[in-house]
């Protein structure tokens, strides 16, 4: 991951080539966004479409953090630091969705304001 030990001339060539890498990745990200848009209208089962969307957005996410945010060329410490936050966030999200994803989050009729309760009835 780290390339700081590379020779200066190699580093200069890398800087030159980064321009085209960034342009190509941006085009790829635009194409993936288009694919996501098409995916939601495909007549497949919901779990398949869900999986495809998750994979596509993960690919976009990874391209941005590793190329645009330079993690690919930076020291591994930056990647580890960011992924600590990312893993904690993902864990928190999964825990919250497991805890409250079912009927537990349904608003209680008794706790609703009178007008809302009347409409619900």
């Amino acid at each position, binding site marked *: 991951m*780290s*390339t*700081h030990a590379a020779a*200066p*001339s190699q*580093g*200069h060539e890398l*800087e030159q080539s*980064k*321009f085209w890498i*960034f342009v190509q990745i*941006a085009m790829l*990200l*635009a194409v993936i*966004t288009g694919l*996501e*848009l098409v*995916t*939601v*209208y495909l007549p497949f089962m*919901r779990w398949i*479409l*869900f999986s495809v*969307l*998750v994979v*596509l*957005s993960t690919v*976009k*996410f990874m391209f*941005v*953090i590793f*190329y*645009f*945010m*330079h993690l690919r*060329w*930076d*020291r591994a*410490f*930056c990647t580890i*630091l*960011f992924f*600590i*936050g*990312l893993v*904690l*966030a*993902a864990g*928190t*999200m999964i825990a*919250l*969705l497991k805890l409250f*994803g079912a009927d537990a*989050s*349904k*608003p209680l009729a008794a706790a*609703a304001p009178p007008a*809302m309760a009347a*409409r*619900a009835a």
Partner: protein
Amino acid sequence: MSSDAATATIDHHFDPTTSTGIPNKKVLMWAFLASDCMFFGCLISTHLIYRLHPPPGTPPARQVFSIELTSFSTFILLMSSLMMALAVNAIQKGNLKSMRWSLLTTIFFGCIFLGCQVYEFRNFVYEKHLTITNSILGTTFFTLTGTHGLHVLVGVIWLSGMLLYSFTGRLTEKEAIDVESMGLYWHFVDIVWIVIFTAVYLLEYI
């Protein structure tokens, strides 16, 4: 300042003066972004939970959202990320003029994104009657996308400040880390939107 000779001597990915070998500003920004991940993670999961049980009378999210507008916003933000990456690349090579144009384009794209969001919010409130207080879906949606929009606004202000600062003559290749840190923040705003676009908008259509 220029350039080719200087480029060969400055390694922007390594700072021998720090114990980690990474510029401290960069470590600080990565630590902040890691904490911001948790912040947005909570907001996104809250929306995902409460969108399942909208109160009576709330229109389905699918009828409220405009996928065309949101896709356009996503494309604009992705292109702004490209311009930001090019701005960082330019300042690392000491090309101040190119950096200014890239920053200006990034600001322009950021403003377009904010304009789309304001238009979307107005449409939701006045046409679709979805407000931050009339349903839980509205509360979680406006809180999440509004917080992201606020991040974009902060980014646009920061970018504008950096663009003005570049005209003072004090921004050189040696201070590229300042632009890179700002770039990290801007790209983070982009990756958060990548998740929001899928989790909040696209999931409603499947």
